[in-house]
């Protein structure tokens, strides 16, 4: 099954067989990172631009390492150094970058839909590295990969996603990806951060942590952002932690072989206790390791093909 997408903007609507194709491709790349010489020539001569309008250590580094291990040249542009500060619009920045003939553009942006705007403005493949509160598809894919590696499957698993669902791009990508692959998904959080409309996406909505994670195979904890407190989504981090923080006592109702994921960065002692984060069920560092392989797979699937199309177009232009 080929990967037919021109861009990766989100997991919503991505067919199950294409998701599985990415995961299978990623699996074949895992081994490269275990070698003494962690480099293959797959994307030699290709250029990948990491365009980050929002600070990120984990995701940007992961993309950069992924590109470098495939021998692509990478350029990192962050909002503080970009022309965004001089008032240039995203669309103009995109067109200017495209004029330099990159083979893929990886973008993180605080506004939902910014990668869609970018994808409309350029013909190069655009990879969404997190847009506002919309999606973070590579995080979703690496979570799927990690769960599948550990559990051997996705279909039929009971997955609880806990926390600030409303503002979480990780939650949305996982929700769409997990549903596409046949997992049962429950969302858990206070009603202020988990509106009932989420139920229309074929998931169960819980406002109680204990019942929300009872019998779960997988628990995915989300980072709670401190600024939500000021906006009255909940009264205090302490109260949030008491109601929705995952510690060993709260874990008792889950399956004995439950695994715990967290996209990071963690607020230890708030949404997750250190004993859980560092405990035997935790896959949190596996997620980070797998992130590199998943991003290598996507760069390979999108950038390699993007270049041949571009070359063909250029040839056609020259011929005509």
């Amino acid at each position: 099954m080929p990967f037919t997408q021109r861009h990766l903007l989100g997991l919503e609507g991505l067919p199950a067989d294409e998701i599985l194709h990415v995961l299978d491709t990623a699996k074949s790349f895992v081994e490269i990172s275990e070698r003494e010489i962690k480099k293959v020539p797959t994307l030699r001569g290709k250029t990948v631009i990491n365009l980050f309008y929002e600070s990120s250590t984990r995701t940007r580094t992961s993309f950069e390492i992924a590109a470098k291990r495939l021998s692509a040249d990478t350029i990192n542009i962050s909002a503080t150094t970009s022309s965004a500060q001089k008032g240039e619009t995203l669309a103009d920045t995109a067109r200017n970058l495209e004029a330099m003939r990159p083979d893929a553009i990886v973008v993180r942006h605080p506004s939902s839909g910014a990668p869609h705007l970018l994808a409309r403005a350029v013909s190069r493949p655009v990879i969404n590295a997190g847009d506002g509160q919309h999606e973070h598809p590579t995080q979703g894919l690496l979570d799927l990969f990690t769960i599948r590696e550990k559990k051997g499957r996705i279909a039929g698993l009971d997955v609880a996603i806990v926390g600030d669902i409303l503002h979480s791009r990780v939650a949305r990508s996982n929700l769409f990806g997990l549903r596409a692959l046949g997992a049962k998904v429950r969302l858990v959080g206070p009603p202020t951060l988990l509106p009932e409309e989420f139920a229309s996406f074929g998931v169960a909505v819980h406002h109680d942590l204990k019942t929300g994670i009872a019998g779960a195979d997988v628990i995915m904890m989300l980072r709670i952002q401190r600024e939500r407190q000021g906006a009255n989504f909940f009264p205090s981090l302490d109260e949030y932690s008491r109601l929705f923080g995952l510690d060993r006592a709260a874990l008792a109702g889950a399956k004995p072989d439950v695994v715990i994921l967290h996209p990071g960065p963690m607020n230890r002692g708030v949404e997750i206790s250190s004993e859980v984060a560092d405990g035997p069920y935790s896959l949190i560092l596996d997620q980070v390791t797998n992130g590199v392989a998943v991003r290598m797979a996507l760069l390979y699937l999108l950038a390699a093909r993007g270049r041949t199309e571009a070359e063909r177009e250029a040839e056609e232009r020259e011929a005509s």
Partner: protein
Amino acid sequence: MTTDGAIVIEGGRLIDPAAGIDAPRDLLLEDGKVRAVDGPGALHSASAARRIDARGCWIVPGLIDLHCHLREPGYEYKETVATGTAAAVAGGFTALACMANTNPVNDSAAVTRFILERAAEAARARVYPIGALSQGLAGERLAEIGEMRAAGIVAVSDDGKPVADAGLMRHALEYCAMFGIPIVDHAEDPGLAGGSMHEGRTSIRLGLRGIPAAAEEVIVSRDIALAELTGGRLHIAHASTRGTVDLVRAAKARGVRVTAEATPHHFTLTDEAVAEYDGNAKMNPPLRGADDCEALRAGLADGTIDVIATDHAPHHRDEKEVEFENAAFGIVGLETALPLSLRLVEERVLMPSDWVRRLSTKPAEILGVPGGTLQPGAIADVTVVSPAAEWRVEASALRSKSKNSPFLGWTMKGRALFTLVGGRVVYEGAGR
């Protein structure tokens, strides 16, 4: 408006609910007035400088847009009085009321006079300025409404911004009653605002902050109570939710002096039109759910909603081709309102005479301006509508300076064939 001699419009179906007419009639216009309305062929021997063949067409009193933004002064890169009224007459409108959120704000007689001077120089349609309710639209102190009224405003509104302070709204309603002009109410609770689309399944899917229906309904409810308290005239701008329709219906039943308008986009599209972050589907109030759409249609059918208005809000491409949450609110509507509202006739939501009421008779009545009827002696503002003409909405063909429409590429049915203001042809369309 000067006249170029008498005009006879013949062979058409005249729809004038104020006169109780929906029948084949011919029309004689002279000296800027309707001179005669007579049976088919009866004006055959009347001498006229021009005879307009209206066979297959509706002859209706000129359409009046109660709510648009002409952007002049201050935002001439979006629209001007000249381009906005050119769009208006191409869309069948002979008069429009323009909102006060210009730069400077129309909160003084000087700005009102400036707009009217620009209209006298450059407008193809009649222009009626709406004055600001509060100074600088800041929602704090009343603007000099009496001065602006003397200069020619027909209503007051802080449109674009809500009046957050109930005390200010109360006094505005009381004060405006002295001049007999309505307050056009942009109903939006500031504490519930701040989103960029309707709050619902689609906003959740797209990860966009929503504006709940309650943001509108809370203020509609408050202002109906204040209209009841003061006896003032309240006109609800761009009603967008089922709750608003219900509140207005109940208030009217109690005898409150409240009227309401709905826009073609709100009764035609739902929030799903935002699709993949289409900036041309972003406006305030936002496109709502299918149930709200249905309620607006029912409200238009039973008269709860008096008026169809465009909320024509031109914006430059650069203000739309940005991240969705940063895109400007609003779409152009003057050139698409006629066919979009005719769909309601085709779908039997509205009778043709109701359609004329919502687009001409009622807006004239609410604003207290001439027009809205074609009885002898009325001003000769006429729209000749070809209800069957099909055409495609192309950005390049729009007269408006801005092209921010979610209807680009749509095939429309119905268009203005002739638009006459003061007995003069100001627009002549091609193709029936």
